[in-house]
């Protein structure tokens, strides 16, 4: 037996959530044809078919691209700080991809490690994640290589599997998921088969050892030289969470904001002296890979990657984590192998 819900009922849930003053976000198709995860005004905008992954991710509902932390006002030599804690309305994420949902527990760890990030956790506590399992994937999807899959339920409050007849096999996973779906499902003897997903493309355990030894590997220069140094990969990554803190002052007052930042920017590591310990794109690409597959896992027991493939799809020069990982997976000492042979980066 399983719980089944029709599309119409799901769309009604969206509209009712909106009518009650909540926020709903889901995949939306723009005029240009590309799909983006956006705040909905109505359930009619929701797109649940014919896309692999939105061009962005759902992370901005817990970690916005820019947010005010507090205001300040100066009086002579004194400064008054004005706290402005966010008080988010209940947020429903509909049609979240499993690789986006799985990022939330990953972000939770880093945001609650030595300091409980209050802004993040207020948003997180307002979140209900209804994940839509994938039925198709492309060459850039590698969820199965990082311990996830097209129906992975990590980070979701409920998992929806498309039955292909206008309804979903619904699997509530948490109290929050059960609460959102209460009274909206019917018992049925139909259940969706679990999708297989893309074949696994890299074996992480040996790769992590190669990365650990590979700080001076020629792979970084070969793969990283073409990197343009933009932040498209980081900003469309469900797990990248680095931020910058800036003050915006006007007259005697102002505010402090936190904005997304990317390790691919030269400014990310430049010192006040002008020295930059990561002087070029190869060293920045190395950092990106090391953080995702060595540094974060050492601390939090999971790779900082859900295999969504957005870093490739959004890369203007077709780089992406998977390509660099695959190149790194071949030890440079393997004579005749792709790395030692290649003059093409």
């Amino acid at each position: 037996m399983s719980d089944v819900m029709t599309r119409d009922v799901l769309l009604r849930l969206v509209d009712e959530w909106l009518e009650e003053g909540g926020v709903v976000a889901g995949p939306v198709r723009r005029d240009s044809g590309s799909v983006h995860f956006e705040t909905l005004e109505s359930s009619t905008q929701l797109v649940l078919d014919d896309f692999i992954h939105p061009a962005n991710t759902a992370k901005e509902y817990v970690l916005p691209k820019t947010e005010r932390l507090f205001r300040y006002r100066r009086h002579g030599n004194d400064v008054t700080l004005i706290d402005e804690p966010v008080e988010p309305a209940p947020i429903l994420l509909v049609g979240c991809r499993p690789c986006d949902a799985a990022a939330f527990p990953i972000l939770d760890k880093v945001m609650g490690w030595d300091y409980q990030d209050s802004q993040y956790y207020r948003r997180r506590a307002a979140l209900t994640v209804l994940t839509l399992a994938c039925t198709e994937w492309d060459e850039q999807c590698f969820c199965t290589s990082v311990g996830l899959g097209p129906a992975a339920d990590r980070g979701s409050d409920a998992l929806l599997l498309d039955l292909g007849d206008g309804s979903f096999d619904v699997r509530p996973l948490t109290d929050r998921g059960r609460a959102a779906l209460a009274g909206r499902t019917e018992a049925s003897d139909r259940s969706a088969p679990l999708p297989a997903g893309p074949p696994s493309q890299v074996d992480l355990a040996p790769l992590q050892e190669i990365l650990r030894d590979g700080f001076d590997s020629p792979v970084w220069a070969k793969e990283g030289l073409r990197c343009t140094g933009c932040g498209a990969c980081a900003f469309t990554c469900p797990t990248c969470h680095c931020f910058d803190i800036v003050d915006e002052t006007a007259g005697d007052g102002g505010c402090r904001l936190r904005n997304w930042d990317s390790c691919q920017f030269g400014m990310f590591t430049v010192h006040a002296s002008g020295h930059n310990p990561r002087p070029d794109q190869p060293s920045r690409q190395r950092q990106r890979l090391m953080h995702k597959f060595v540094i974060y896992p050492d601390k939090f027991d999971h790779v900082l990657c859900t295999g969504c493939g957005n870093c490739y799809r959004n890369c203007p020069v077709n780089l992406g984590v998977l390509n660099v990982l695959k190149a790194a997976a071949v030890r440079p000492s393997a004579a005749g192998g792709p790395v030692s042979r290649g003059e093409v980066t």
Partner: protein
Amino acid sequence: MTWQRLRDTCRSLLEAGTVDVVIGYGSTGGAPHPAFVTDPEATDQLVFDDRCYQNLTLYLTRADVRRLGRPAVVVKGCDARAVVVLEQEAQLVREDVHVIGVACDGVGHPRAAKCRACDVHVPPGCDEVVGEAAEGTEVDGRYAELDELMGLSVEERFAYWAGEMERCVRCYACRQVCPLCYCPVCVMDKNRPQVIDASPHAKGNLAFHITRAFHLAGRCVGCDECTRACPAGINVRLLNQSVARAVEQQFDVRPGMDPAVGPVTGTYSLADREDFIR
């Protein structure tokens, strides 16, 4: 076959020592991507097809690429115009770069917007051109998309741009892929004092995009890599076109089309029109 001619050309250049590195499009099976070939044997990985989107002249000014030595660069028609502007702006010495043009019928499926209005299918000003272009070279409607936008009321246009600016995440992909955004320190990154708000909010984004468009006035060659690179899907092209059309109307200049015509913002002529200064 174009590929073979391209590979043979690059191989000869490397073998003869004419150049130290070929900046071309490489593929080992997947989609082509920018590649830096220093070994003649590796020229067999060079390709050219309609997925070769990138404007490789971007790399001519990059310090880490310059360290590879004297370059040859593979260019499409739009990219070739950037070489001209880079030379005019003293960012490269033309004789020090071997420019290999590839005749181009356009990129993308369907064809990218810039290609549907392209009149430089055969790259101008190259040291050699490989292949032949089948598509026409005279196209009307270069500004058709802009005309459509300008047909809207001011309020409608502002609403359109406010919505687009809302999407910008300040990843700076548009800047990073632009061969003419070569400043070692971009004004966006100046923070002592902060010149432009770094935050991706409405005010900061508007300031960024307008500044960016103005800094490319009389310089943008319309390769449109900025639009393609934008992960938020912002049609950056419309801003560039708006400025490019003003330059074309007022100065009769399309940047990079003619090496003999100097840069608009760096050239003074008594014949310059001034009736638009009010």
